[in-house]
C-alpha cells in the first residue's frame, strides 16, 4: 500500500464524510464550513493528481470567494439552525433512496464499461497541471471561450445590478 493510495483513501474518506456532514448538520453555517472542508479535500486530490494550478484556484475561488459569499449571505439573513423547518422523513427517505439508486446505477454502468478496464490514472507526475502549459493552452487554443466567458460575467453583472438594486 503506497503512500499515494493511503493519501487517496484518506482524502476520499474525509471528503465523503464532510460532504455528508454538509447535509446532516442543522446549522447552515456549519454546512458551509463542512463544505469548505470538502473543497480542501478535493484540492488535496488535485495536488495528488499534480494539478497544482487547479488546486490553488479551487482554494481561492471556491473556499476563498464563493464560500465566503455564502457565509456573508447566511449571516446577513442570520438564519438560525432552529428556524429551518425540516422536510418530512418520508420525503427525505425517498430522496436518499433515489439518490442512492442513481449512484448504484452509474456505478453499475462504470463497472460494465470494458473500455475503462486497466486504465490507470497518472498520479503526481506529468506537467499539464502546472501553470505554464495551462496558460499556453488557455491563451492559444482556448482564447475564444476565455473571451466569451467575459460575456457571461457581463450578463451576470448586469443581472446582479438589476436584481440587487432596490
Amino acid at each position, binding site marked *: 500500500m503506497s503512500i499515494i493510495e493511503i493519501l487517496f483513501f484518506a482524502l476520499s474518506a474525509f471528503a465523503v464524510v464532510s460532504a455528508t456532514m454538509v447535509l446532516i448538520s442543522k446549522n447552515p453555517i456549519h454546512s458551509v464550513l463542512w463544505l469548505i472542508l470538502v473543497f480542501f479535500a478535493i484540492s488535496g486530490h488535485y495536488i495528488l493528481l499534480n494539478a497544482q494550478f487547479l488546486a490553488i484556484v479551487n482554494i481561492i475561488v471556491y473556499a476563498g470567494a464563493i464560500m465566503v459569499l455564502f457565509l456573508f449571505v447566511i449571516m446577513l439573513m442570520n438564519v438560525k439552525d432552529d428556524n429551518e423547518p425540516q422536510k418530512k422523513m418520508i420525503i427525505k427517505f425517498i430522496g436518499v433512496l433515489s439518490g442512492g439508486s442513481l449512484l448504484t446505477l*452509474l456505478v453499475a*454502468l*462504470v463497472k*460494465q*464499461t470494458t*473500455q*475503462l478496464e486497466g486504465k490507470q490514472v497518472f498520479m503526481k507526475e506529468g506537467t499539464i497541471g502546472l501553470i505554464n502549459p495551462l496558460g499556453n493552452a488557455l491563451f*492559444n*487554443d*482556448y*482564447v*475564444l*471561450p476565455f473571451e*466569451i*466567458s467575459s*460575456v*457571461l460575467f*457581463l*450578463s*451576470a453583472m*448586469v*443581472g446582479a*445590478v*438589476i*436584481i440587487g*438594486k432596490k
Partner: protein
Amino acid sequence: MNAIIVSTLMGVIMMFSSWLTSSAKAQRNIGLGGMFLLILANLAHLKGWWVIDFDTKGMLAFNPIGLFANLTLFILTFIYLWINGEEIEKIGNHTADFYAIFFFILCGVSILTSFDNLLMLFIGIEILSIPLYILTGADKKNLLSNEASLKYFLMGSFSTGILLLGIAFIYGATGSFHLSIPIVNPKTQMVTENFLMSAGLILLFVSMNFKVSAAPFHFWTPDVYDGAPTVFTSFMATIVKAAGFIAFIKVFEMQRVALGYSWTIILSFVIVATLLIGNITAVFQRSVKRMLAYSSIAQAGFMLFAIYGNSIFNTEALLLYIVAYSLATIGLFAVLVKMKDYSFESFNGLAKKHPVLAFLTTIFLFSLAGIPLTAGFFAKFYMLNALFTANAGTWLLITAILFAAVSIFYYFRLVQVMYFTAGEPAINEVDKKYELKLMVVAIIIILLGVFPSLLFNYLYF
C-alpha cells in the same frame, strides 16, 4: 462570428446607453437599431459578403443552416422587440439593461447554433440561462416573479450539474470535448458500445430536454412561464426555446448512432410523455398564460420529432416549426400583455369590443393548433413527414395526431370565449398601431401557411 461579436458589442453599448440617454424610447431605438445591425451582420456572414475571420481553433464551426437559424431567430427577436418595446419599459427602470441582456442572450444563441465543442455548448447554455434567471425575476416586487426565478435558478443549475457530469463521462470515453462522429462497425452496422459514452449522452440528453422543457423534465416550465413577466415569458417560450432545440439537434443528429436502438425508445418515451402532459394538462387551466405555458410544452413534443431522424429535412422542418410557433406565440403573448388579468373569463366577448384583435388572436391560435391556411399546419405537416422519413412507427404518429386533436380543446376554448361568450373583456386600451404590428405577424403566418416554400427558398442558395 459576426453575430457573436456584434451582439456582444451591442450588449456592452446598451449597458452604457443608460448613461448616454435616460429616455427609454431612445434606448429602445438604439436597441432596435442594434438588432437591425445584428441581422445585417449575420446576413453578411450568411451570404459571405463580409466575414470577420477568426481562427476558432475548432471551438465553433459555422454552417449555413446554423447561420440561417441565427437569422430567423434574430428576425423573430426583432419582431418581438418591435411589438413589445413599450411593455418592456413598464417593468422596472432597467430598459437599457434588459436590452443588454437580450443581446447577451442572442450571443449565447449564436454560440449554440455554431458550437463545435462541448465547452462552447456549456458556455453557450450558461450564457443563455443565467440572464434568463434574471429576466424571470425582473419584476422584483412581485412575489410570483421571485418565486419563479428562484425555482428556475435552482433547477437550472441542477440540470447544469447533470450536463457537466454527462460531458465528463463523454470526455472520459473519448478523451476530447470535440463531438466526433462515432465509428460504425462495418460488420454489425452498429457502434461498438461504450457504456460510459452512452451514459454521458443520456445525461446530456436529459439536460437538453430540460432546456427545451420536454417532459418529464418540464416541471419548471409552467411555473416559470407563469411567474415571469409576460413580455419575457414570450421571449423565453420562443427564441430561447428555439435555440435550445437547435443545440439539441446539433448534438444528437450525429451522436444518436452511438446510443443504438435504445435511442428510439428513450426519445419515444420523452415525446409521448411530453405530448401527454403538455396537452392534457393544458385542457384544464384557468389562466390563459398558464395554458400557453403547457401548450408550449406540447409544442415542444412536436418539435422533438425533428430529433428523431437525422435528415437535412428534419432541420428544415424544425426551423419552419420554430418560426410558425414563435410567431404565433409572440402574437398571443402580445395580446395577453394587454389583458388586465389572464383568466379565460377576461377574454369574454373580445370579438364584440375588438373584432380585429380577436380575429388576429384566432389566427394565432389556429396556427398553434395546426389548422390549414396557417403556418402551423405546414409546421406540423413537415414534422409528421420528418417522422415518416425517419420511419418511425405509425403508432407514434397516431398518438401525435390524437394529441393534436386534444390541443384543439384548449385552443378553441379561447376562440369560443372570445366569439361566443357574451361579456365585457378585461382589457387595457389597445391602439391601432399595436393592432397593425400584430396584423403584420398574422399576415406572415398566413403567407407561410399558403406558401411555406417562401421560407425554404433561402435554404437552397
